[in-house]
């Protein structure tokens, strides 16, 4: 399902007509301005790079802006996804206006995975398998409005994949150097808005040139800044939408709101729609390392790994410092300080974390050398002097095991001890009360267990926790269970009774139960049926012709 994209060119003339795609029906009412301009597109408000920038350097200079060419969207799935760069004509107009027009084109930094299914209008019911070969032209024509407006209120993605629009961004930037037609413009307003400009996308194959691939995508500072502004604005709008106070809208609130507005059943959390601060999404990039004259700033630039070597240099300096301090203390005949930093609850940075910190690739060898150096620094008697420095490279390990609180026994009117437990399995939910001084009588939903579970297998499941603890005939049990089938109900009751029995039993036995798997929720649920297949795994019958 493609999303219609707001037209960048709607900035000037058709701002009112910008499609509030996510808000669907909202847009049909007399739309306030801020709603109208809300879009769900990732804000690819890229400054169009100049013609053929060098692979490493992004043109940031204002002059290049004048020569800004319209961007071309990547071939796959871009139809309707990206924010259009302005048309050439309007571009000029925009430029003459100077800096950004006052009423910004507001975007929610909503990063949805690339929609795989360009759904042809609402009329069609069954999804088509993704076909990347389809011309973007056709794709765009078939674009219905996005999420929330139509029959498919879920997220438009049909395949989990790269969640981040940075991927699209990447492609965009790669394509940025080439000429291309203008990107897709936004779809028509679904409300009573005035007309929007619609650019028909043409295939990029015609304009493909033999250009060497530029390296990893680079984001300019201005771009990141812009993204951050837009994120904040979008956050405020989201808070407004949800009826909360924009001032105190935290990231958790954002996550909750997005999960509410775009419910997704995908298992992989990273595949679901997310809205995060740009710094979390766009990886940090290194600035240009040399000046205009071509001379590098850092003195270790020509080592190739300047940050790593400078780090080693600094750390060794600290080491020497400590040694000097030690010598001084020894000279003064003072005992060296013995307070050792407790390393138990902390760990060093991992290689990836260090790479992120240095914005540079490291080899394993480099990494191990650095850690060895750090450890040497810490081991030294006066290492505490440099504690601040060391803290930068260590992380706390949060408590591994969360203590599960075992509830104490409760007593009912007759003075009989009992305890309750809850369990679930697949779609069944069970609550159980296990009473002491019993005869092994079990009642499920008011019915005797022999009648409720005529199958032996289910009764064996119920027997398991008691047999494991050698308490077969000693407890009575009253259960309520709902949902699921007979086997899953039996499993749910088993889990619930095991949890309830924890209160009657020593900690060691609780540990035994846990190792036996009696206290673990069975995570197996029914697997989703995939399109193009008959079931979750079963494919359609293969016919040779």
């Amino acid at each position, binding site marked *: 399902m493609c999303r219609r994209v707001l037209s960048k060119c709607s900035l000037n003339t058709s701002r009112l007509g910008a499609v509030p795609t996510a808000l669907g029906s909202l847009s049909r009412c007399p739309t306030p301005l801020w709603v109208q301009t809300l879009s769900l597109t990732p804000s690819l408000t890229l400054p169009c790079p100049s013609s053929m920038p060098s692979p490493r350097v992004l043109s940031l200079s204002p002059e290049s802006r004048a020569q800004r060419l319209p961007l071309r969207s990547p071939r796959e799935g871009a139809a309707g996804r990206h924010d259009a760069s302005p048309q050439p004509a309007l571009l000029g107009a925009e430029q003459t206006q100077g800096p950004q027009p006052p009423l910004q084109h507001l975007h929610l930094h909503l990063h949805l995975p690339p929609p795989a299914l360009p759904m042809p209008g609402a009329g069609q019911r069954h999804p088509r398998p993704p076909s990347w070969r389809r011309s973007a032209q056709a794709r765009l024509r078939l674009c219905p409005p996005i999420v929330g407006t139509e029959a498919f209120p879920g997220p438009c993605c049909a395949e989990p994949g790269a969640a981040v629009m940075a991927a699209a961004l990447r492609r965009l930037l790669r394509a940025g150097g080439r000429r291309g037609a203008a990107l897709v413009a936004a779809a028509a307003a679904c409300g009573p808005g005035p007309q929007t400009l619609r650019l028909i996308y043409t295939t990029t194959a015609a304009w493909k040139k033999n250009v060497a691939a530029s390296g990893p995508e680079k984001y300019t500072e201005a771009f990141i800044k812009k993204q951050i502004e837009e994120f904040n604005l979008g956050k405020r709008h989201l808070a407004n939408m949800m009826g909360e106070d924009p001032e105190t809208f935290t990231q958790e609130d954002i996550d909750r709101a997005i999960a509410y507005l775009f419910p997704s059943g995908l298992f992989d959390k990273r595949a679901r729609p997310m809205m995060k601060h740009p710094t979390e999404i766009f990886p940090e990039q290194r600035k240009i390392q040399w000046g205009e004259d071509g001379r590098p700033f850092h003195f270790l630039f020509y080592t190739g790994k300047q940050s790593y070597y400078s780090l080693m240099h600094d750390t060794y300096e600290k080491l020497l410092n400590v040694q000097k301090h030690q010598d001084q203390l020894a000279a003064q005949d003072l005992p060296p300080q013995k307070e050792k930093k407790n390393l138990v609850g902390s760990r060093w940075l991992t290689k990836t974390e260090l790479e992120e910190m240095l914005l540079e690739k490291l080899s394993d060898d480099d990494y191990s050398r650095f850690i060895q150096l750090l450890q040497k620094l810490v081991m030294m008697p006066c290492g505490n002097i440099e504690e601040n420095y060391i803290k930068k490279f260590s992380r706390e390990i949060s408590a591994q095991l969360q203590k599960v609180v075992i509830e104490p026994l409760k007593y009912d009117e007759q003075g009989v001890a009992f305890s309750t437990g809850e369990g679930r399995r697949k779609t069944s939910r069970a609550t159980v009360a296990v009473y002491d001084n019993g005869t*092994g009588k079990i009642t499920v939903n008011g019915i005797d*267990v*022999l009648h409720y579970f005529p199958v*032996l297998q289910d009764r*064996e499941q119920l*027997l398991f926790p008691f*047999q494991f603890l050698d308490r*077969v*005939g000693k407890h009575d049990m009253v259960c309520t269970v709902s949902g699921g089938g007979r086997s899953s109900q039996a499993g749910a009751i088993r889990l619930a009774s095991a949890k309830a029995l924890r209160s009657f039993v020593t900690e060691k036995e609780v540990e035994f139960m846990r190792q036996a798997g009696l206290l673990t929720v069975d995570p197996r649920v029914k697997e989703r049926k995939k399109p193009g297949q008959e079931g979750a795994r079963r494919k359609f019958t293969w016919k040779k012709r």
Partner: protein
Amino acid sequence: MQRAIWSLTVCILPSQANHTEHHEGRHYSIPLEEVKAVFPHGLPYRFQQQVKTFNEACLMVRKPALELFTYLRNSNFAHPAVRYVIYGERGTGKTMTLCHVVHYCAKQGWLVLHIPDAHLWVKNCKELMQSSYKKERLDQPLQASTWLKNFKTSNEHFLKEIKTQQKYVWGKRESTEQGRPLGEVVEQGLARVRSASDAVGVVLKEIKQQCHLGSFRVLVAVDGVNALWGRTTLKKEDKSPVSPEELTLVYNLRKMMMNNWNGGAIVTTLSQTGSLFKPSSAYLPHELLGKEGFDALDPFVPVLVPNYSQREFESCYHYYLHRKWLQHEQARTEAGKEELRFLSGSNPQQLERLAGPL
């Protein structure tokens, strides 16, 4: 026959002993010849297999049976026959209780009219004939003849004693004179299968007429009595359903079930297992008998057969152990016993099925 006493709970009692309360929970064995004589057709199928496997028939003495014995012992046979209805959940031992009572009465010298399963008469009948006696009724020659055969084996000596009190004409050339022994009627029914159902009717009528004289006591033991008042799955030739009254056998048996005769007792069992069109959770008399049956049997003495009590369960378990039926080594432990108790829910049938593969 004396058997060794193994333990307090497992005790194979001699069958001739009078069973009283303190024998409760114990097994007693019946010699195999007696089994063949008394129960040609009465025992449940699985029990018959067990008899064959163990080479002995051991019944457990349980409270409902003892209750019935006291009733029977103290009943006044001048009064109309009392009806006892044994009911209970599935697999609790109703049929076995009935068999116990039958054996007890047979030992005491009663005439036993044992209908093993009335449900067999209302379903799966291959041959339905129109009755020659009454036009509306339907005959079931096969079922009637099997029953007559079994009746003959179980009550041989009575057949010689009881004499017919009127003449019965079976067909153009066959008739039974007055004063002939009942055995002739039975022979006639067996020989002429067409008139077997009528022969059954004659037998029942004669017995009913003569039992109040006091020379012998009659025990009418019917298993699955709710079949007599339920529905049938039989259809006439024009595909219209048959109601039970239209069957000769059922009609005559119903007459027997009425309490307008004295000198005996009627002990019946309700059974859901073979019943037609009844939910599997139904076990109470009014559920299984329906309004018609309930009114017909009312007043009756209900006897509930529960699952095994602690003691009975132990007894049964030890019996299986003693017979080396439980081969699994864990089954011999205490934990195994508890497990069996839990899984079977102290239900005799479940326990028997569980113990099978062990």
